[in-house]
C-alpha cells in the first residue's frame, strides 16, 4: 500500500500519502489520529486529472495527471469521513478514519 504514514518532524503535521492509480485511491482507508492536523500528499499516477472531494472533510482539490498535491485536513473528531474523486466517482472512493 502506498500509505506512507510518518511524522516529518516533531512540530510538522504528520504526513500521509495517498495514490490515485487506475481511478482508484490507494489506500482506500486512511487512519489518522484525532484532534491532529495532518498533511495528505496525493499522488495522481493516472494521466488524467482527478479531484479529491469530501464535504465531510470540507476539502476539494484538483490533482493533475502525473502530479502531486498537498491537502491539509483536521483537526478532526473521531469518526469516518468519506471522500471521492469527482471525475471518477463510481470507482475513486475512500474514507478517512479518525481514531
Amino acid at each position, binding site marked *: 500500500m502506498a500509505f506512507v504514514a510518518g511524522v516529518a518532524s516533531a512540530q510538522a503535521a504528520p504526513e500521509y500519502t495517498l495514490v490515485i492509480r487506475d481511478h482508484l485511491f490507494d489506500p482506500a482507508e486512511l487512519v489518522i489520529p484525532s484532534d491532529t492536523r495532518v498533511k495528505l500528499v496525493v499522488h495522481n499516477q493516472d494521466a488524467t486529472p482527478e479531484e479529491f472531494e469530501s464535504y465531510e472533510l*470540507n476539502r476539494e482539490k484538483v490533482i493533475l495527471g502525473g502530479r502531486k498535491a498537498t491537502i491539509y485536513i483536521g483537526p478532526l473528531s473521531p469518526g469516518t469521513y468519506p471522500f471521492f474523486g469527482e471525475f471518477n466517482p463510481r470507482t475513486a472512493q475512500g474514507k478517512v478514519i479518525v481514531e
Partner: protein
Amino acid sequence: MLALNGFACGVLADGLAIDKVYHPYVDPLAWELEWRVTHADYNPASDIDREEVHRFGLAKAVAPELMLEGYLIAERSANQDLKIEGYELEALWQLTEQGEKSLDYGLLFELEKERGQNAWEGAASLLLERELGRYSVTANIELGYEWGEDIRDEWETGLALQARYRYRMILEPMLEFYLGEDTVGLGPAAQGNIRLGGMKSLHWQTAVVVGVDGTTPDYTLRGLLEYEF
C-alpha cells in the same frame, strides 16, 4: 467580488455596499457562470428607492492559484428601468493551501468602470478564512479608491464577515455582517451546492441583511446562482 462603496464586495461606485463574501480558494479547472442580485429598500444615503443591482459573471482560473472573472453590471430602481451600468474585472489569488495555517489567506483585486462615464473604482481585499470544526468564519477586508471626472475621488474601506455552519451540502445556514461607507448591516443567510453530475454543479446563496443604522436601507435582499462546469 468585493467592490465597495464603503467596502464590501462588488458594488458600483457609491451604490450598495452589501453584496457577497468571498472565500480565498480557487478551483483551477472549472468554469463558473454567475448571476447575483441585490435588492435594497429605500437607501437614505443615496436617496434611491428599491435599487436593484444584477451582476452577470464568467470566471476561469488562469493558474492553479489565480482566477479571473469578468462582469456585466445592470441596475434598476423605482425610477429607472434595468440597464447596463458598468463592467468589472476581478482577480482572486489563493495564497495558502486550505487548512495549512491557522488562517487561510487570499487576495482579491477589482477594477470597475461605469458605462458611459469617466468613473472608475479599484479595490484590493484581504480574504481570511478559519475552519472551526463544522463552522467556518470568513472575513473580507477591503481598501478601495474611486476616481474620474464623473465621480468624487476618494478612498473607501469595507469589511464583510460571514459565519457558516456546514449542516448539509445543499443547505448551510450563515450569518453575515457588512460595514462600509453609509452601511452597517447584519442578517441571516444560507447557501448550498447541488451536484448535477459530470463535474457540473449549481451553487446558490441568499441573505436578508437588515440595516442597523440610519443610513443603511432597512433591508437588503441578496441572491446568487453559480453554475460550475
